[in-house]
C-alpha cells in the first residue's frame, strides 16, 4: 500500500489548487457543494442505456476546470487511477446483455455495450465533478460548509481532525515501514508477527498523541466545543451560480440535446 504515499502527495497538491484565486474559488462552498451534488444526481438518474444525452454534462466539470484554472491533465490522471473498478464491474454488462440494440451499418451493437459505455461515462462525470469540487474548495472548507448545511458537529470535527493528522501519522507509518524494509533481507521479516507489533506500536503512539493533543487543547481553554471563525456569505453571486447550473442541468436532463442536434444535421444530409 505504498501508493498511499503518492496519494498523499496528491492531497497536498489538491490543497494547493484550492488556494487559487479565481472567482470560482471565492464562491461560497455551500453553493459549490450543492451544485455538485445536483450534478451527480442528474447524471446518475439517466436510464442505463442512455449515452448521448449524458455527453453535454461534461460542460460542467470542463467549465469549472477552465474557470478555476485547474490542471486538466492532472485531474484526468486522477480519474484514470480509479477507473479500473468501474471498468471491471461494468465489463459484465456486454457479456451478459447481448441483445442487439441498434445497428450501425453491418455492426450490431448490443445493449450491454451501450450500458457499459454509459457506466464509464457516469463514472468519468461523477468522479471529475467530485475532484473539481475539492480542487476548487479544499477539504477543510467543504467540511465547514457541511456543518453550515446541518451535518452534526461531532462528525465535522472528526473529519477535520482526521484530515489534519493524516499527514502526521502516515509519515510515522512510512518511517516504520522503511525501517523494517531496511532490515528484512531475505528472511521472513515481512511476516505477520512483526507486522502486528508494528501496527500495535503505531496504535499506542497514536493513542499517546491523542492524549497530548487533548492536553494541548485543554491548555487553551477547550471545553468540548471547537470554535471556528469562517464567515460564509451566500450572496447574489452564489444564487446566480446555482440557478444557472440548475437550469443547465434541468435542460440537459430533460432534452436530449445531442440527439436533437444530430437529427438536424443528419436530416440536412439526407
Amino acid at each position, binding site marked *: 500500500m505504498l501508493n498511499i504515499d503518492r496519494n498523499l502527495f496528491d492531497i497536498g497538491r489538491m490543497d494547493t489548487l484550492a488556494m487559487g484565486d479565481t472567482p470560482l474559488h471565492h464562491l461560497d462552498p455551500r453553493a459549490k457543494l450543492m451544485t455538485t451534488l445536483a450534478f451527480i444526481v442528474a447524471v446518475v438518474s439517466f436510464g442505463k442505456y442512455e449515452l448521448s444525452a449524458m455527453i453535454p454534462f461534461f460542460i460542467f466539470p470542463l467549465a469549472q476546470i477552465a474557470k478555476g484554472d485547474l490542471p486538466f491533465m492532472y485531474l484526468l490522471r486522477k*480519474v484514470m487511477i480509479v477507473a479500473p473498478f468501474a471498468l471491471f464491474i461494468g465489463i459484465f454488462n456486454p457479456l451478459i446483455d447481448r*441483445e442487439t440494440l441498434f445497428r450501425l451499418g453491418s455492426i450490431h451493437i448490443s445493449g450491454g455495450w451501450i450500458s457499459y459505455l454509459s457506466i464509464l461515462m457516469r463514472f468519468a462525470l461523477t468522479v471529475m465533478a467530485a475532484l473539481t469540487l475539492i480542487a476548487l474548495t479544499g477539504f477543510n472548507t467543504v467540511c465547514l460548509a457541511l456543518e453550515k448545511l446541518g451535518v452534526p458537529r461531532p462528525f465535522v470535527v472528526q473529519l477535520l481532525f482526521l484530515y489534519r493528522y493524516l499527514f502526521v501519522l502516515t509519515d510515522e507509518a512510512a518511517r516504520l515501514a522503511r525501517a523494517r524494509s531496511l532490515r528484512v533481507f531475505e528472511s521472513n521479516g515481512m511476516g505477520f508477527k512483526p507486522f502486528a507489533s508494528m501496527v500495535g506500536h503505531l496504535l499506542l503512539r497514536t493513542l499517546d498523541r491523542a492524549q497530548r493533543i487533548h492536553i494541548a487543547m485543554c491548555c487553551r481553554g477547550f471545553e468540548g466545543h471547537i470554535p471556528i471563525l469562517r464567515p460564509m456569505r451566500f450572496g447574489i453571486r452564489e444564487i446566480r451560480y446555482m440557478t444557472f447550473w440548475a437550469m443547465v442541468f434541468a435542460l440537459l436532463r430533460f432534452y436530449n440535446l445531442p440527439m436533437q442536434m444530430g437529427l438536424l444535421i443528419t436530416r440536412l444530409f439526407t
Partner: protein
Amino acid sequence: MHMADALISPAAGGAMWAATAGLIAYSSKKVREEMDDGKVPLMGVLGAFIFAAQMINFTIPATGSSGHLGGGMILAVLLGPYAAFLTIASVITVQALFFADGGLLALGCNIFNMGFWPCFVTYPFIFRPIFNGPATQTQGRMLTGAMLACVVGLQLGAFSVVLETLFSGISELPFGTFVLMMQPIHLAIGIVEGFVTAAVVGFVWKARPELVTHDSNPTYASPNNMRPVLIGLLICAVITGAALSWFASANPDGLEWAMFKTSSHEELANPEKGIHASLLHLQKKTAFLPDYGFKADGAEPKAEAESTPSWPAVSAGTSVAGLVGGALTLFLAVIIGLGLKRRGNHSK
C-alpha cells in the same frame, strides 16, 4: 468493496444516504452525550491511524499476496460503537473525496456497508459477548470474537453491496454470480482482517489493558438501547421501499428501474428470472418488514416490461443521429471550456 456512483441509481443512493445520515446524527448525539472531551481528538487521530496503518503490510503465508489492516472492528473495540461509526464514516468520506474511492452519491452505501455492520451488529452482538462472557477474558476468546465479528461483518457488508447494486439496476451482473464472486472473496478478507484485529487488539491489551477491557459504553448492548437504532433502520427501509416504488410507478421510462426487468435474453437462459426469483425468495426470508415495497413492484414491472421494450424504441436513424450529435456536443463542450480558459487567462 467501495461502490462507485456510476453503478447506483439515485433512489438507492438517496435511500442509503438517508439511512447513513440518520445513523450519523444518532451517533453524534450519543457521542455528545458521553461528554468525553478526550474522545474528540482521539477519534480524529484514530481515523488517520487507519489510513497510516494501511501503509504497513505483511505477506500472507503461502499465497504471496499481502494483507493490511481494514480497521472497523479495532475502532469499535477502542472507541465504542457510536464514536467508531463516526470515525469510519469520516475515513470513507476522505477516501471518497480524495482518492475518488467510491463516490459522493455512493457515500451513503459505503458508510453503511462498512460502518453499520461492524459497529452496530457484529461488535455488540458477537465480539463483546464472546470476549466479555462469564469466564475471564483470554487471548483465545479475543481471537475467536475478533475473527467471528470481522468475518460476519464483512459478509454482511459484501452482501449489502450486492443488494444495493442489484436494486440500482445499472450493472447487468446476475444476483447469483455476484454473490458467488463477492462472498468468498470477503470471507478470505474477513479471515485476514480477523487475525490482524486480534493481533493488534492483543498488543494494545498487553500494553494498556484499560483501553480494551473496559466496555467503552457498558449499557448499549442491552436490547433496549439498540431499539432506537433498529427502529431507525426500519424507518429507513420503509422510506427506501416507498421511494423505489414511487419512482417505479411515477416515472416508468425515464428512470429505468431495471432491477426486476425481465425482458428476455435469447442467449442466456433467462438469468434475470433467476435474480427475480431468488430476490423474492430472499425477501420472504429476510422480511423483517412485512409490507416492504419491493414485493409489489417486483410483479408490476415484470408485466410492464413484457409489453414495452427496454429502451425507448430505437431505430437505426436515431442512433446515428445520437452518435453524431453526441460527438458534436462533446466537441462544443471542449471548445467552450477552452474559450473560458482563454478568457480567464486574458483577463489576468
